[in-house]
């Protein structure tokens, strides 16, 4: 405990020193508004530092242990010429691809403009090229309850991805973001992303985290999302990083009238993952659907923090997070639905289910409801258990091997989440990945094009005639 506190102090000092010596480079392109936000955040970070395990929202979260004090701050002008041969699990889909290597935009044109007015590219370039647009939205979604990770990101961010969909435009193809960590020396990366959907716009976005080297890096990504009136965003997040990498992935979403946000966070591998999702339902008729799936084994740890803020009447939110924990994996689910005074006719559902496969795996679920309005329909539930023995017996009785029956049950459990993926090609891929993950055949090194493990055909050997 003490050691961690000391380490987080060391990392805090490292980051402050890094800022001091690189202030000019970090702030070079800042608009006045961004500069003010940076300074405020830096001050807060200096005063309060990183969160600790005594804070309610960070209890039992192991991400704090990831502050091991041996980080190197990546030089800002570091060039990532060509990424290593990389084969994405979702590579041959029809998407617009954005590539970030170690948190820095990597590509030929750093800001791509489309005929329909859509803009995608680097956050930094966007700030330089479109300061008016950038200022209108940047920093507008920041949740009231901030913490050291958010502050350090706001203070030190250097780059990230930027997506802008103007009024009445429906993006033709999904945008796919591939984020790679490829660095030999424990980088601590601050990525800052901004997604803007103006009124009536719609977008599908796929965001993948992958890593190459077995290094103890820490990614601190913060994504701001603004969804205008009647706009709709589907966001898919895929996490498949190596077991030494720690990932802090924060999303702050602000939704306007009748907008729709659908998020699906699927975590296959990762040393320590913390997903923060803050949804602010700011105008009537907004709907948020937040789904998550985590399949963890070995010593992996995942922590999902989710806060849905029903500020006005007539909004809807659904949350469903499911997880399977194997070996000595541990998971935390921290859900919080807040219904403000006067937010009548709110409909909020929150659910977290877990399957524990081994005696050493652990789950800690905290589904909170905080309600200040009476005419609401709110429910939450959490369950922790094992595979249904009766279902297992039934299948075995029908000649399905124990191993297969087990797989089938686990797959059915997980598929409830993957079924919510609205891109058919992607859903198919994810299903396939889930199956392989459940067999222990999908690991983070699968992304490597060298394919040390030979690619195989995967399917469930079930004779349907016997069912």
């Amino acid at each position: 405990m003490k050691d961690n506190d000391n380490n987080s102090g060391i990392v805090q000092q490292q980051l402050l020193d890094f800022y001091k010596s690189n202030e000019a480079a970090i702030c070079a392109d800042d608009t006045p508004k961004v500069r003010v936000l940076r300074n405020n955040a830096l001050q807060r970070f200096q005063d309060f530092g990183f969160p600790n395990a005594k804070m309610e929202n960070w209890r039992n979260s192991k991400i704090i242990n990831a502050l091991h004090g041996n980080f190197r701050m990546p030089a800002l002008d570091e060039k990532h010429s060509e990424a290593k041969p990389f084969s994405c699990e979702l590579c041959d889909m029809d998407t617009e691809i954005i590539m970030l290597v170690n948190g820095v935009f990597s590509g030929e044109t750093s800001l791509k403009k489309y005929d329909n007015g859509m803009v995608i590219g680097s956050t930094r370039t966007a700030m330089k090229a479109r300061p008016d647009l950038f200022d209108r939205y940047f920093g507008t979604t920041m949740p009231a309850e901030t913490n050291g990770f958010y502050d350090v990101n706001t203070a030190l961010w250097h780059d990230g991805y930027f997506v802008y969909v103007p009024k009445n435009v429906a993006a033709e193809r999904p945008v796919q973001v591939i984020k790679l960590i490829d660095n030999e020396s424990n980088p601590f990366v601050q990525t800052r992303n901004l997604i803007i959907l103006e009124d009536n716009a719609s977008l599908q976005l796929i965001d993948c985290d992958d890593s190459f080297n077995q290094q103890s890096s820490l990614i601190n990504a913060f994504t701001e999302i603004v969804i205008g009136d009647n706009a709709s965003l589907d966001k898919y997040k895929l996490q498949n990083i190596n077991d030494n990498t720690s990932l802090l992935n924060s999303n702050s979403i602000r939704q306007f009238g009748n907008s729709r946000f659908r998020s699906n966070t699927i975590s296959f591998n990762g040393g320590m993952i913390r997903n923060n999702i803050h949804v602010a339902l700011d105008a009537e008729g907004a709907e948020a659907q937040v789904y998550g799936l985590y399949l963890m084994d070995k010593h992996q740890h995942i922590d999902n923090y989710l806060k849905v803020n029903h500020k006005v009447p007539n909004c809807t939110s659904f949350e469903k997070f499911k997880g399977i924990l194997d070996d000595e994996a541990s998971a935390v689910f921290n859900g919080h639905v807040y219904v403000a005074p006067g937010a009548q006719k709110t409909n909020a559902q929150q659910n977290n289910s877990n399957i524990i496969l081994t005696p050493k795996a652990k789950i800690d679920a905290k589904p909170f409801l905080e309600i200040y309005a009476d005419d609401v329909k709110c429910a939450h539930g959490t369950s922790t258990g094992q595979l249904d023995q009766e279902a297992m017996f039934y299948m075995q009785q029908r000649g399905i091997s124990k191993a297969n029956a087990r797989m089938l049950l686990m797959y059915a459990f997980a598929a409830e989440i993957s079924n919510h993926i609205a891109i058919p090609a992607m859903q198919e891929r994810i299903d396939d990945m889930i199956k392989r993950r459940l067999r222990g055949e999908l690991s983070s090194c699968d992304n490597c094009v060298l394919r040390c493990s030979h690619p195989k055909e995967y399917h469930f050997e079930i004779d349907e005639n016997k069912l």
Partner: protein
Amino acid sequence: MDTAPQNNIINEVTNKEYEYGFVTDIETDFVPKGLNEDIVRLISRKKEEPEWLLDFRLKAFRHWLTLKQPNWGHLHLPQIDYQDIIYYAAPKKRSEKQSLDEVDPELLATFDKLGISLDEQKRLSGVAVDAVMDSTSVKTTFQDTLSKHGIIFMSFSEAVKNHPDLVRKHLGTVVPYTDNFFAALNSAVFSDGSFCYIPKGVRCPLELSTYFRINAANTGQFERTLIVAEEGAYVSYMEGCTAPQRDENQLHAAIVEIIAETDAEVKYSTVQNWYPGDKNGKGGVYNLVTKRGLCRGDRSKISWTQVETGSAITWKYPGCILKGDHSVGEFYSVAVTNNYQEADTGTKMIHLGKNTRSTIISKGISSGHSQNSYRGLVRVAPNAINARNYSQCDSLLLGDQCGAHTWPYVQCGNESSILEHEATTSKISEDQLFYCQQRGIPTEKAIGLIVNGYAKDVLNKLPMEFAVEAQKLLSITLEGSVG
């Protein structure tokens, strides 16, 4: 026969101080305001306590000095000035009223609604009780029955004197003085309370109630209850009272410890209806209690049933440590808050033994400007294989100014356990209300009916006589909350 003059005479006699007596120093029987080691020693000396108990108090006090008043609850608990409290007052007689005519008519109306007998009304509102009807005789038969079975049921101070070994063996084993701020405070200055001991293999033939302990009325604000059920014993224990208690003490920091040995079962029921403050949230009692049961032996069972309607602030988590294999913990709660009341209550179920089971049923009802929170912990230790928990926490909102919150903590440390938690929050069903009104039932009565139906799961667990009163109490508490 004209009984009025006769009653007057009896009242007069009973109100008089005993003129001839050997009862001395009534006047000196209090300690000055404030809290320090000398006060703790003084309390201990006044109660003629043995050395070990003084040590216990002093250790607790020294630990308390290192602590700060916690503030993590979903409550507006002000910083209490602990030096502004008198920590020991003799069981002074309340200024007694001559007849029920002097009693607040509103209070009497409430009594009538609760169906409390006239004599009991007098007792509760501080009117001198009819000498003939004094419960001494009842108490005697009651004590006879208990002693026949070897059951010890007496005030804590008496127990310290008469059964020091038993008290010493069990005191602080479930709630150590290091447990929390208020537990430390209570351990240092506790005034009195109840001690209950059920010997091996005895099934207590009566429902034990503090009502029968004549000195229970003035146990003060730092009460301490210790219940020990030896192997195979059974007891159903009731504390509290449905009748409104006009108590001047603002802070109540009590401790309840329950120990259940192998095959023992303890059923603890309580109805709490302390003064909740007025309609604007002024005044009212702070009810900050540490209650915990230890299922020490295999197949033991502890069950908590509580109906919480009073107090400005209620902050307590009656819990069970399920240490013995196959042990069972149960928690049934109805918490009602009205006006500006705040409640942050729930339970802790700590599963340590194998095949342990726990059930949590919590029904929260909030109205007015009140805040009602359920906060509960279910923890399954890695060795507690095959543990099973089912939690259901429902909240009912009456009115758009109140809040209902649910903060469950579910921690599972092994693969063979099954834990379930579900909760819903909603307002009173318009359909049900409409149906009742349509049949000529006025709104207020209809709400009472619906709320009672909603809380039925818990009320059913109360001992019969309690349950009847508790049902009425629920309706009364919510009176005037709809409109």
